């Protein structure tokens, strides 16, 4: 159901592989403020990705309820390379717009503008197989932003990138989000990344996943991924999150 209050999850239980399958999420409560960037931090297999799939409508919830922001529509960046290899970069970005009935010239215009803002205007007519990993992830991110959904779900979209590329794409991601201010739920297992990107961070327990700690990130924006570590209190917040992950 849509909500003007952001994303609200109450008592959510989700199984992977049907009702008798592996219980991935159990008794999950979470509030994500409208227009905020919220990171979910947790170890592998703790149900982070399953939560996003449930919110994206890919897996049914067993119990509980959630209210999505705005009109209830979502955009989703799955884990790994999700760009369609058979579509050119601009057609990939325009895919969600096509499903929403936007005309071809309009959707390609919006797609080209998004790609240009990510420094990919020279690559719009290339296929994903002709792009680097970093460029492909930029295309996947642009595709998610193109539909202007009020809720953006991102599942470790940058985990396969090298450090320098990752920092560059993070900056571009934050730039796009700042311009649109949609609500973002961002799954990662990287504490530094969560601190660089998010307004709030929720730490998940081991499976079945539930929130064991939520913190407000105390560092002002704009943040510089490298210099952020020199901020007073960075080490304390990092250690606090790390100990939460360890205590899971």
């Amino acid at each position, binding site marked *: 159901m849509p909500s003007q209050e952001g994303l609200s999850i109450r008592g959510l239980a989700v199984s992977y592989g049907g009702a008798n399958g592996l219980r991935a999420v159990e008794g999950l409560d979470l509030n994500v403020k409208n227009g905020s960037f919220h990171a979910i931090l947790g170890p592998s297999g703790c149900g982070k990705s399953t939560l996003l799939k449930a919110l994206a409508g890919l897996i049914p919830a067993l119990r509980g309820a959630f209210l999505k922001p705005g009109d209830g529509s979502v955009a989703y960046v*799955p884990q790994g390379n999700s760009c*369609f290899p058979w579509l050119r970069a601009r057609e990939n970005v325009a895919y969600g717009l096509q*499903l929403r009935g936007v005309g071809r010239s309009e959707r390609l215009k919006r797609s080209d503008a998004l790609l240009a803002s990510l420094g990919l205007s020279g690559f719009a007519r290339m296929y994903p197989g002709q792009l680097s990993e970093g460029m492909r992830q930029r295309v996947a991110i642009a595709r998610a932003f193109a539909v202007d959904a009020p809720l953006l779900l991102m599942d470790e979209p940058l985990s396969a990138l090298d450090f320098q590329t990752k920092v560059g794409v993070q900056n571009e991601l934050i730039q796009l989000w700042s311009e649109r201010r949609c609500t973002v739920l961002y799954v990662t297992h990287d504490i530094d990344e969560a601190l660089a990107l998010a307004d709030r961070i929720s730490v998940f327990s081991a499976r079945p996943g539930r929130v064991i700690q939520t913190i407000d990130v105390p560092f002002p924006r704009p943040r510089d991924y490298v210099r952020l570590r020199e901020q007073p209190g960075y080490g304390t917040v990092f250690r606090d999150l790390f100990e939460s992950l360890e205590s899971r």
Partner: protein
Amino acid sequence: MRWTRTIGLGLVLPVGLIVLWQVASYRDWINSLFYPPPWDVMQRTWEQVRDGDLLSDGRITAVRLLWGFVLGAAPGLVVGLAAGISRTVRELTYPLATALYVVPRIAMLPLVLVALGIGDEARVFMVAFSVFFIIFFSALSGVEQVDRSYIDAARAFGAGRIRLAVSVLLPGAAPAVFSGMRVAIGFALIVIVGTEFLAANDGLGARIWTSYQIFDFPTMYSGIIAVTILGVLLAWALLAIEWLMVPWRR
């Protein structure tokens, strides 16, 4: 230049074998009745090309093969994709397809001749029957191998079953389908030549078989050369179609 070296190296073995064959046949190291010198084979081939006999038989075989390929591949593709998309269709078709797939094609010939008579319908059916199962299984496995993240991304954007099939599963399965087609075209050639050996008076298979029976070995070899050229041309044509239809794999 690199490409001239590549072509040159690729020609070394075939040219060497032909020269060896020519010398061996000329010097009677091998029986020149069964293994006539390549030069004689080339002369006979050229004579038959000029007469129009070889081209006529080649055309007859090619037409039978292409009809059989189209009539087998089209339903194989449709049913294979449907089986990949729908569990019900898969459960309905998979057991029978698996059972029929392992039957040696040529073992079906007597039954097909009884059912359809000794005519082109039977020969075309033999090819179509062989091609159908190869394309069916390649389309089915092509759909099954489409990366889960593509399906998830499309569904999260709101793609329903039909849109998911058209915009994700079909293009995602295309490379596997074309791989299957490359295998199927080779099978189709084997089946049509084998069928013409046993149940035809014209076509390249019949030409090869008849000339073998009357010990006209140069004509037999010219038939084999024509079949080889036909196979190569069909494989190239298929590659050209794949190049056009699957541009992201270039």
